[in-house]
């Protein structure tokens, strides 16, 4: 309270007046305008149920996930300035980030840790939505979009794993994409794959990697998926996810 009193007094001084220009009158109309009059704020409804702001109910996990997505987008764009997606330069660019680019290592760190954290918060958001039964009518489709966003989060992380072109990423992607060999019907080692004419050079793994082993083509494919295609799809689904929350009557709560 002392802070508020001090702040109120400060606003009356010439310095305070010059900074804040006019008093922000705390009226319902102004509160409404704060939301309506701002392109980012208007994602929110003007008024919400009392239970919807309780951290104990939502854990804030959906919002944190979105925040991490924004952090990843910004740090990712900055990283793209220093990265060449070819097998000769990619690894050396990592070394450049570490030793010559100002704050390069910090940039790479925040991108990696935010990515790990996003996978965790997506899972916890899903746990919260399940435990509160929030997927029940009328929010069924929001849940379906949410599952797709979970898959996209994993795919975004997976495609990013390869980009440093080090042993860790290279073999993680090798192990991961080796599974695709065994795809039924569409993999050359999967059930009924050979019968349908699948070989290592025309099956689904070949399509994913652009080759029969993880190489330069796989790197450029991983890069395009990671930096362009998957973020676009994810952004679209995030928009739908948010829009559906509003259309379906805000976040869930007891009726």
């Amino acid at each position, binding site marked *: 309270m002392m802070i508020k009193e001090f702040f109120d007094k400060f606003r009356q001084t010439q310095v305070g007046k010059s900074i804040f220009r006019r008093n922000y009158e705390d009226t319902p109309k102004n509160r409404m305008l704060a939301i309506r009059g701002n392109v980012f704020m208007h994602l929110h409804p003007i008024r919400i149920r009392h239970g919807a702001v309780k951290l104990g109910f939502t854990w804030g996990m959906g919002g944190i996930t979105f925040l991490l997505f924004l952090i990843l987008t910004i740090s990712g764009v900055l990283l793209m300035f220093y990265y060449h997606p070819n097998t000769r330069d990619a690894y050396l660019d990592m070394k450049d980030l570490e030793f010559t680019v100002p704050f390069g290592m*910090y940039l790479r760190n925040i991108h990696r840790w935010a990515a790990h954290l996003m996978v965790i918060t997506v899972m916890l958001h899903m*746990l919260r939505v399940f435990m509160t*039964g929030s997927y029940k009518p009328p929010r069924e489709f929001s849940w379906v979009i949410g599952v797709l966003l979970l898959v996209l989060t994993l795919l975004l992380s997976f495609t990013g794993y390869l980009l440093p072109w080090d042993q860790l990423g290279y073999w993680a992607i090798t192990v991961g994409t080796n599974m695709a060999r065994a795809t039924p019907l569409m993999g050359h080692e999967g059930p009924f794959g050979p019968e349908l004419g699948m070989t290592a050079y025309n099956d689904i793994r070949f399509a994913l990697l652009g080759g029969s082993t993880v190489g330069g083509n796989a790197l450029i494919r991983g890069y395009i998926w990671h930096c362009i295609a998957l973020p676009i799809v994810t952004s679209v689904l995030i928009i739908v996810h948010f829009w559906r929350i509003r259309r379906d009557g805000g976040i869930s709560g007891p009726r």
Partner: protein
Amino acid sequence: MKNFIEIISKPDNVAIVIMIIMVLFFTILAFYYAISGDRRRSRKIDQPTSPEQKADGEDKIHSWPYLVRIEFLVAIIVIVLLNIWSVVLDAPLEEFASETRTPNPAKAPWYFLGLQEMLVYFDPWIAGVVLPTLIIVGLCIIPYIDINPKGNGYYTWRERKFAISIYSFGFLALWIALIVIGVFMRGPGWVWFWPWQEWDPHIVTSEINVDLSQIFGIDARSFAGSVIGGLVTLGYFAVGIIIPYIYSQKRGGKFLKELGPIRYLIVAGLLLIMIGLPIKIFLRLIFHIKYIWVTPWFNI
């Protein structure tokens, strides 16, 4: 033990440790809210129109400032913690990628290690393709097969025991626990190492696995073995679908009528596949059974 501390403090695995702590915390929190909410609601039956109930429906508040300030506070806290994490701990970078030097063990990214762990018990087409597909499809259809109208928008255990048990089992035991095993317990050659054991790449393990019909002296690759395996596999699903059906019919069949035959088949089928995972793990670990059903095209 030195080895274990080394694994646990690998920069990437710090994320797993954070995941374990957060998952445990939030699972306990959810169940705490669920059970305390159940108690509160059962007390409320005596006084149906309590002021709190009224407040939930009618008393709306403004997003500005009540929601927005929480969002910004949480954002600040997350950004601060993330910055500390990024300053303290460097992202890992191993040697230049080389297709001629395979690391042992070669592990997928950590969130796929549950699936990689399933490779011990199933062929790649199941563990790597069919299971992930079924997980995604199964998650997507949850809202359409869970016809219980109760528990919409609040934490409860009593009103949704079945749904919550299945989800918790799938999430905690079949997803999180298998990831933790894949990260911390699986060493060179994907051999199980306890935390106090050193990861020895030259460790000798002897495991003689048999196929199911070999227990009865019939070669699993023969026609008879194939038929036996097929009967056991299909019989598992048939019995698993029919017995609960008869059981619910005897108890009135009201639930079945609401669920409908298509939903029932989907629920039973997915559930049997899900329960099939721990069954196969158990058969493999205790009876050393590799395949239940061997055919020229696929093995289960």
